[in-house]
């Protein structure tokens, strides 16, 4: 047999039907659902008199619209947001899928809840009407975002019509330097490939620096595969993965665990397997990075300066000019001179316990800058509970952070957590698009440690100077 990549193996294990031209029906093991991209899909089923094909493989949780303030038991003020969450509530119960409502301690961002509850397992296919489904690739699961028509298709048939993507390898060799995190890796890769560099590919991340990451870090790396244009990001499962999965509520137990483990251990890229594209970065060359523009590819080391439009070529010249103007920056300005109004820590990219620990390490015993608006939004109710148990919440509150309830919050600002026009934010989330965090809001993407450093100094800051 010819050697296969990890992607080839998972793909082959899930093809339910293949047409002559390669168009395949890919069987879906886990379908995650949230309130924004699902109402029209459930309505479509209802109109056609169809059922959910496999409700036991479907998991729903509201996350985008939910308020994260401590008084959220009062309900959702915005009528449209409330209707959307109520629609999910109704649909989940009517169609009989697994459901974590707003008042359940397990509620949170769908991509944090899935792994936390053991729904996400190695070798699975996982989809969700959400582009950051790529997160689950950290387990060696083939996971990607789909549109609402495809959500309806998966609900009705538990399959997706797909053509296979190409294979791309992203290798991060060696060790990371102190102060450099998974977020810096994933941003540095996008800086290297561009936001369209991964289009048409599934990326497998590998190399010593990836192996050394915790599951939380691996999820951060895979989460942003979509920002590089890739359909999905994957990391081969290993002892770190198995250790994380074992004992989770929906992970296999007993003899089934042993059987699963035996298969999971075969999920790696064979020696000599073909990759259509290979990118290699040295771990020790990666620095703490920050985005300056309005595309995740606008990445520079924190030690850099704002570029000039003329530094670019082709269509990017005009895009850079527009970004610099939108962001209110001046070419040549040092990134560490950029003053910040707000710090947002959370999201499916960086809302896990390890991210919060990294923040606590930087801010312990210190105060955030006077006048700074700084919020920490845990990725799930369970992350929040754990952070409280570990004493992190006390550190945050003593430093002056708002300590919120779980949700997507200011990552995309569908709930009341939004930036005002021209308000400048250091955010641990994943997109710095125009208007993403609020109309005319300005976003700089950073790691949790860098966000913490910015909260203390009031400027974009090289966290290594505070260590």
């Amino acid at each position, binding site marked *: 047999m010819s050697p296969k990549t990890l992607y080839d193996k998972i793909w082959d*294990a899930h093809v*339910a*039907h293949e047409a002559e*031209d390669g*168009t395949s*029906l890919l*069987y879906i*093991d886990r379908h995650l659902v949230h309130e*924004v*991209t699902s109402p*029209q899909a459930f*309505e479509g089923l209802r109109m056609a008199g169809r059922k959910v094909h496999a409700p036991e493989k479907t998991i729903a949780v509201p996350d*985008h*619209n939910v308020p994260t303030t401590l008084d959220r038991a009062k309900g959702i003020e915005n009528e*449209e*947001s409330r*209707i*959307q969450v109520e*629609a999910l509530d109704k649909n989940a119960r009517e169609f009989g899928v697994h459901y974590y409502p707003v008042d359940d301690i397990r509620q949170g961002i769908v991509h944090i809840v899935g792994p936390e509850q053991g729904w996400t*397992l190695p070798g699975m296919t996982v989809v969700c*009407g*959400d*582009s950051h489904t790529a997160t689950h690739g950290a387990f060696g699961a083939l996971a*990607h*975002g*789909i*549109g*609402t*028509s*495809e959500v309806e*298709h998966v609900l009705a*048939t*538990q399959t997706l*019509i797909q*053509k296979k993507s190409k294979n791309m390898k992203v290798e991060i060799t060696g060790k990371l330097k102190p102060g450099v995190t998974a977020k810096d890796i994933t941003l540095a890769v996008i800086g290297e490939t561009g*936001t*369209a560099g991964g*289009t*048409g590919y599934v990326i497998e991340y590998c190399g010593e620096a990836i192996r050394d990451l915790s599951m939380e870090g691996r999820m951060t790396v895979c989460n942003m595969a979509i920002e590089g*244009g*890739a*359909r999905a990001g994957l990391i081969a499962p290993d002892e770190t993965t198995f250790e994380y999965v074992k004992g989770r509520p929906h992970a*296999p137990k007993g003899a089934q*665990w042993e*059987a*699963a483990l035996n298969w999971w251990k075969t999920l790696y890229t064979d020696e000599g397997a073909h990759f259509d594209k290979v990118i290699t970065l040295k771990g020790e060359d990666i620095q703490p990075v920050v985005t300056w523009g309005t*595309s995740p*590819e606008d990445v520079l080391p924190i030690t850099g300066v704002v570029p000039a439009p003329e530094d670019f070529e082709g*269509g*990017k010249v*005009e*895009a850079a000019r*527009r970004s610099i103007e939108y962001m209110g920056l001046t070419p040549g300005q040092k990134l560490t001179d950029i003053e910040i109004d707000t710090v947002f820590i959370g999201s499916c990219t960086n809302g896990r316990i390890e991210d919060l620990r990294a923040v606590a390490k930087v801010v312990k015993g210190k105060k955030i800058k006077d006048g700074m608006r700084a919020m920490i939004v845990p990725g799930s109710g369970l992350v929040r509970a754990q952070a409280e148990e570990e004493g992190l919440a006390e550190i945050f509150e003593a430093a002056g952070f708002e300590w919120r309830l779980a949700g997507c919050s200011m990552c*995309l600002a*569908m709930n009341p957590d939004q930036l005002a026009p021209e308000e400048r934010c250091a955010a641990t989330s994943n*997109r710095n*698009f125009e*208007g*993403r965090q609020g*109309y005319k809001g300005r976003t700089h993407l950073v790691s949790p440690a860098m966000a913490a450093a910015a909260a203390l100094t009031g400027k974009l800051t090289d966290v290594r100077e505070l260590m």
Partner: protein
Amino acid sequence: MEKFTKIQGVAAPMPLVNIDTDMIIPKVFLKSIQRTGFGKNLFDEMRYNRDGTEIEDFVLNKPQYRSAEILIAGDNFGCGSSREHAPWAIADFGIKCIVSTSFADIFFNNSFKNGILPIVLPQEQVDVLMKDAEKGANARMTVDLEAQEITTSDGEVISFEVDAFKKHCLLNGLDDIGLTMEKADSIKSFEDKAAQERPWV
């Protein structure tokens, strides 16, 4: 789904690269539980001032492009979120075809589900079409899906590639779910086999 066979219409030029889904339809409009009515908010923040008045120099506000049916766009169109509200807004506005050097994967797939034909062409050919589109309302292009050809207002013919299955669905306005349900037996036998091999799933 509406069929797509052949259109002849005005093409609007949007040379900006990385036009993302937040630009196409900002998240404040994602709260609807319907599939329709998004067209008026297409490109909302680029198209309107905060008070709701139109921004004059935005391409789709110019008289010659107000009824554009084709968009010629910069690289990596539709990057960002999986929101199908983006193609819903585009279709609702009346745009049926988008040409670029590349599209984000999820947006590309979502387009076909909504009767929109996204066409990928090399930079030189996109440049030709961009120039043609910049001529304004008199530059009507023809997009013929059956023949896989675009004809510029000058009569220049450019061929394009399209996935055969997606073409078939667009030409006939076919609903994917119905097609897949015809393969219910394959799905059932896959499930039986998977239950043996990976019972923990």
